[in-house]
């Protein structure tokens, strides 16, 4: 009876997940350019990627750069907002909603909106900066700033992480703060010695999820910069897409997918391995 109920998933798993995974693994050892049948070439794709494809390394570097800025800024913003919004004051639910809403906008709409916000001369961001007598960079058209523009843009979609932090904060018993206040702690000590330690499971969860997501950054770069200027926003998945669906090097792209899989898998394992800083109750 159990199998009867899960049979849709089981069939779907075989057809849409396990089958394609095996096929993809096979393809990654072939030269397959769609027109002719796949040709077995052993580890040639992997060798070429690692040994003689500067764009592979460039895209990996760009992605790591993005991840390195994306995670701390994302966590810090979400955490600060959640702490601010974890109060029982009038209107707080409306504020939470307002901070959450932008994260529902994604994909093309988000990209198009931010193209306009980040426009060098008449974009909102640089106009605001010039209001404070600051000259903003050219953002998406400046190789030095383009990746950071994506990091800033991602902060607008902080909602999901913020909600997870809020849920974590609401689980912290009020008495802990009360007894700490009897000992005369200030707000920073409250955060440092009560909030942060008890919030480590949420922080850990958010980091793991953000890392996985940040490694797969694609749509924004595809629409807004298409990898430019001078490949400064050629992120890993964008390069993978180009190989697979622009140059039709499907075998090569499959190898890239497997390397990505292995990177994400190892990074996640490492995070779990070094998670002794996470403080679980009980």
């Amino acid at each position, binding site marked *: 009876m*159990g*199998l*009867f*109920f*899960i049979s*849709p*998933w089981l069939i*779907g*798993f075989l057809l*849409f*997940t396990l089958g*394609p*995974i095996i*096929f*993809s693994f096979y393809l990654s050892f072939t030269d397959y350019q769609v027109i002719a049948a796949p040709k077995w070439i052993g580890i040639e794709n992997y060798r070429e990627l690692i040994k003689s494809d500067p764009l592979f390394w460039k895209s990996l570097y760009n992605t790591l750069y993005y991840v390195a800025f994306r995670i701390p800024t994302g966590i810090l913003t979400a955490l600060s*907002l959640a702490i601010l*919004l974890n*109060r029982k*004051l009038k209107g707080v*639910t409306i504020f939470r*909603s*307002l*901070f*959450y809403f*932008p994260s*529902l*906008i994604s*994909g*093309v*709409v988000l990209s*198009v909106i931010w*193209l*306009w*916000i980040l*426009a060098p*001369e*008449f974009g*909102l961001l640089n*106009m605001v900066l010039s209001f404070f007598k600051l000259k903003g960079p050219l953002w998406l058209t400046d190789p030095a700033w383009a990746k950071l523009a994506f990091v800033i843009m991602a902060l*607008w979609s902080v909602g999901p992480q913020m*909600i*997870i932090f809020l*849920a974590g904060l609401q689980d912290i018993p009020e008495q802990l703060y009360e007894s700490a206040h009897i000992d005369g702690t200030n707000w920073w000590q409250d955060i440092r010695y009560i909030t942060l330690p008890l919030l480590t499971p949420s922080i850990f969860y958010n980091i793991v999820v953000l890392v*996985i997501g940040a*490694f*797969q950054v694609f749509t924004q770069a595809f*629409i807004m910069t298409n990898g430019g200027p001078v490949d400064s926003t050629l992120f890993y*998945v964008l390069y993978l*897409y180009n190989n*697979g*669906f622009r140059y039709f090097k*499907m075998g090569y*792209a*499959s190898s*890239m*997918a*497997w390397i*990505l*899989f292995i990177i*994400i898998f190892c990074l996640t394992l490492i995070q779990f391995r070094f998670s002794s800083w996470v403080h679980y109750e009980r």
Partner: protein
Amino acid sequence: MNNRKITIVNNLIWYIIICVLVFIFVFPLLWIFSTALKTRDQLFVYPPVLIPKPVAWDNFKKAINAIPFLLYLKNTLIIVVFSLLGDIISSSFVAYGFSRIDWPGRDILFLVLLGTMMIPYQVTLIPLFIVYRMIGWVNTFFPLTVPSFFATAAFHVFLLRQFYHTIPKDLSDAAYIDGCSDLRIWWKIILPLAKPALVTVGIFNFINHWNDFLGPLIYLQEDKKYTLAIGLYAFRNEFGTDWNLMMAAAILMVIPLVALFLSAQKVFVSGITLTGLKG
């Protein structure tokens, strides 16, 4: 008395900080809206104006006419409705098998299901494309809807399973005594009780497919089949400097999300999605 004063001052500072931050978060949206209502020559003025004069309401009309908007809307809705239907039926069905009945191997297979969430979609993207191409599904809506009928949204199965666990076992036992089959219990008892969870799953499915870009980009090649997301992308490539029209088109795509958000705020902010994380 003094303490109360401190609290009031504290709260006041809090409100000021929050309001500034809310302003930073919401202002881009206002700015986009303002842009959508400007005539072309108002776009490039310094200092900028927030309230356009004259207000160019017909930008929305122009944006709708610049692309086959209604056709793209229809295509998008077809995909959204079918994948929503498939997702809700199959996920809730499969979740029943993973929670309401005991059978050997259940928990191992559930771990496999959770494991599939870890696999980056890029790994299956290319083989699936090749297979769909072979069976002639490219340039149809099938690759974007059919998988939903096979509980491929593992996270949704997970959510529903967690929810089913909170429904007392006694309900099923009583139904068994009355000679109810599992199929009937699922349909008549569990589904009505799981409504809030089903709504959550439905909303997330809607948003995902409404915003989806890569799927339609790869599978829909003929412009008669495009979704709104692809239409907006094509719009940008064609009218890249008509920022007012582009923002108008973007706003038209955001409106359903706003409506959904306003009618189901609780789903997003109360964190129903999180109940699963802790169990």
